């Protein structure tokens, strides 16, 4: 059996679903292949942060463009995705960190971006009354917020299908080969064909790239999160720190999500993760010091998703260097959720029109070929 499509997208995370949707909106016939179900891994179980704040400068234009789509997310996907925009606040815990915040905001201004604003102690207290008094200030990005990650991924999936994309879940790619300008994708459920292939396979993307002879140094990581039982409302914006690892937010129902990128162990072959409680104690201590209001809270659940991280912590976006008709969209290194809508749109532009207005040069896969990984070796995942 062989089924034809214009584009085959591998990976049903927020990125694969978004690219499939935007391709369908541009009149292409995409086929989305997902080995589990959409949103099963990092896209469905992340902290849901919709954040322009504190991004790598290379990502800022993409993040700002994506924010425009978040602002009208219900028009785009027919669901509000649980998106609430109470801002995100980066808290400096001492004067040196505050000075770094000032330098960061100044640097962004010079680059023409104004979404990050320096805030002093008084404004920090106004935005985040529960924060400990020792914090001298920070940065706010007022349009930022948080959404429900699984619901968001499902909304993109649903709207992609409604717009004409086809979806196969529970189908794993076994091999890919390009013959006479057509990709032949052998899967656990038969072969599929298309002239264009998009690799949005997250933590499994290096394997797919390797099938095309492209060796990408990608690490499967398991960022950990914890959630508390309900506590009385005390916080609106999402909180991140300048120094220590923490992201912190309270949901409308009172539960508090504690994350920040401490890593457990990922077992991508088994869809399994193992938590590292020694590191989670560090998160608990940070919360304890920063938010005295949390002292009576109880942790009811902790988990980790499986995500891909690149050596430089920014994603791979754009053409393959080894094969025609192969596009990469992976390696978001635990901060790709907010980028999903925007990068899906730029990928569709890139595939359908051959160009995008957004600056994607920093994300080329070629940057890893300069001495990091000698050709012919296996990716670190294998």
């Amino acid at each position, binding site marked *: 059996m062989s089924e034809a499509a214009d584009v085959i997208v591998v990976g049903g995370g927020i990125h694969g679903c978004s690219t499939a949707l935007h391709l369908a909106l541009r009149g292409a016939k995409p086929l989305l292949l997902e080995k589990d179900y959409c949103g099963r891994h990092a896209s469905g179980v992340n902290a849901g942060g919709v954040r322009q704040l504190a991004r790598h400068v290379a990502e800022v234009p993409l993040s700002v463009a994506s924010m425009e789509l978040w602002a009208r997310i219900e028009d785009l996907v027919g669901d509000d995705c649980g998106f609430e925009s109470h801002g995100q606040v980066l808290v400096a815990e001492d004067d040196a960190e505050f000075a770094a915040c000032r330098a960061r905001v100044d640097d962004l201004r010079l680059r023409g971006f104004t979404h990050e604003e320096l805030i002093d102690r008084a404004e920090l207290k106004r935005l985040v009354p529960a924060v400990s008094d020792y914090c001298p200030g920070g940065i706010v990005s007022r349009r930022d917020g948080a959404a*429900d990650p699984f619901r968001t991924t499902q909304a993109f999936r649903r709207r992609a299908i409604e717009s004409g994309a086809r979806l196969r879940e529970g189908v794993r790619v076994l091999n890919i080969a390009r013959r006479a300008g057509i990709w032949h994708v052998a899967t656990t459920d038969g072969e599929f064909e298309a002239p264009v292939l998009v690799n949005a396979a997250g933590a499994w993307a290096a394997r797919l790239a390797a099938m095309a002879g492209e060796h990408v140094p990608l690490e499967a990581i398991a960022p950990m999160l914890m959630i508390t039982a309900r506590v009385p409302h005390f916080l609106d914006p999402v909180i991140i720190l300048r120094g220590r690892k923490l992201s912190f937010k309270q949901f409308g129902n009172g539960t508090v999500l504690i994350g920040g990128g401490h890593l457990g162990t990922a077992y991508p072959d088994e869809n399994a993760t193992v938590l590292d409680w020694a590191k989670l*104690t560090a998160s608990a201590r940070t919360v304890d010091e920063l938010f005295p209001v949390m002292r009576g809270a109880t942790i009811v659940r902790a988990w980790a998703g499986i995500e891909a991280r690149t050596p430089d912590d920014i994603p791979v976006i754009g053409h393959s260097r080894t094969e025609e008709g192969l596009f990469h969209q992976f390696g978001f290194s635990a901060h790709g959720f907010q980028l999903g809508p925007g990068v899906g749109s730029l990928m569709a532009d890139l595939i359908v029109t051959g160009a995008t207005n957004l600056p994607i040069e920093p994300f080329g896969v070629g940057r890893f070929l300069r001495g990091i990984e000698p050709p012919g070796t296996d990716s670190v995942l294998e």
Partner: protein
Amino acid sequence: MTAMPLPKDHYDVVIIGAGPAGLAAAAVAGKAGLSTLVLDENAQPGGQIFRAITSTPVQRRDILGDDYWRGENLVAETRAGGAVIVQGATVWSLDRDLQIAVSLLGQSQIVKARRVIIATGALERPFPIPGWTLPGVMTVGAGQTLLKSSGLVPDGKVVLAGTGPLLWLYAAQVLRAGGAIDAILDTTPRGNYWRALPYALPFLMSPYRAKGLALMREVKRKVRVVSNVTSLAALGGDKLDAVAFSAGGAEQKIAADTLLLHQGVVPNVNLANAAGVAHRWDERQLCWVPVLDADGNTSVPGIAIAGDGAGIGGALAAAERGRIAAVAAVEALAPGKKSLTPDRSELSNTLRRAELGRAFLDVLFQPAQQFRLPEGDTIVCRCEEVSAARIKETIALGTEGPNQLKAFLRCGMGPCQGRLCGLTVTEMIAQARGMSPDAVGYYRLRPPVKPIALKELASMPHSEQDEKAVVRG
């Protein structure tokens, strides 16, 4: 570093739970010279079946019965074997590296084991009827806990409803302790008697038969028993004041201050599930059971499960399965000490005898579909107050499994971690989608399997290396 309440942070064998399986396993492992730690969250050893065996105020022996007092020997034997039994120790995480996170006296720490035997037993099957969340409605198991640990019997007008051996045992114990029961509403479906018939022969040869029939006679002499009850609802405003039911086609209502519900017990799978142990659906017991080999080993190397957590088998079978798992641990860790352990084939024979008649009980007391698959406004998830109707609507939208449902409705995401809704949700999805529960699957459960105070987590022993900061670009 913070001081740790446990003497060591590594043991040959860590056994979780001090019921019949855990105690018997600890006796064998301890006697063979393995460093053996038993972690149990209750104040006293004994688990559910021998709850408060060393401390119960119920001293008249006939009230709780001979089967209960047998627990005294087991505790004595385990203590003599050299195992360390730690009470008040709540295990809240176990992983494939055999790291166990345990909370003791408000302080948590990590203990490392070479082998883990999970003996966390059973819990009562959810009984989602209209009004089951009203104050005044509780489970028979909870009632029995109060009787064993505090000598309490329920006051006022008391109604028991449901099916299964524990219902009758508890009723007899309440009556012997001087309590009164206004009515027992027996929900055992009439058809079950016919369906159980093929399994009757081994049951007739088992010790359960004589004991079970005597118990039922004892109770029926003193209590109004309504058979073939096909619907149940707890009624009341802010608390229970009546129970409505139908039996033989007639609707009835009786006043009640306390309604005790019970429709059997199922393995408590939470810790094993969170550790990544593979489970399968048991069609006869209508619940998840771990996939085990003959020694009780799970799909995770080094983790075994014994007792009712391995599939419901009762106290006698639990102890034998505990011994078998401990013999396997001795064989793996100290083969030279094998001669100090009981004979393996004899244990198997005893286990087989203890399991005689189990199939008959399983089929006879299989709860009726209408008490497992609720409708309408009946609450399924108590933590997040999700009704059956909302779950049905969400399934109809194309939700394929419990984990997707959880993401949409939050059912199973509260502090009980699905203990009160998980089986109901799996069966509802299976029914709606025309699939087997095995194909539908279960919640992926996450540690902590018991809530842990943030403060306690923050004060856990740790190294400075975990503190290293990151710089954001």
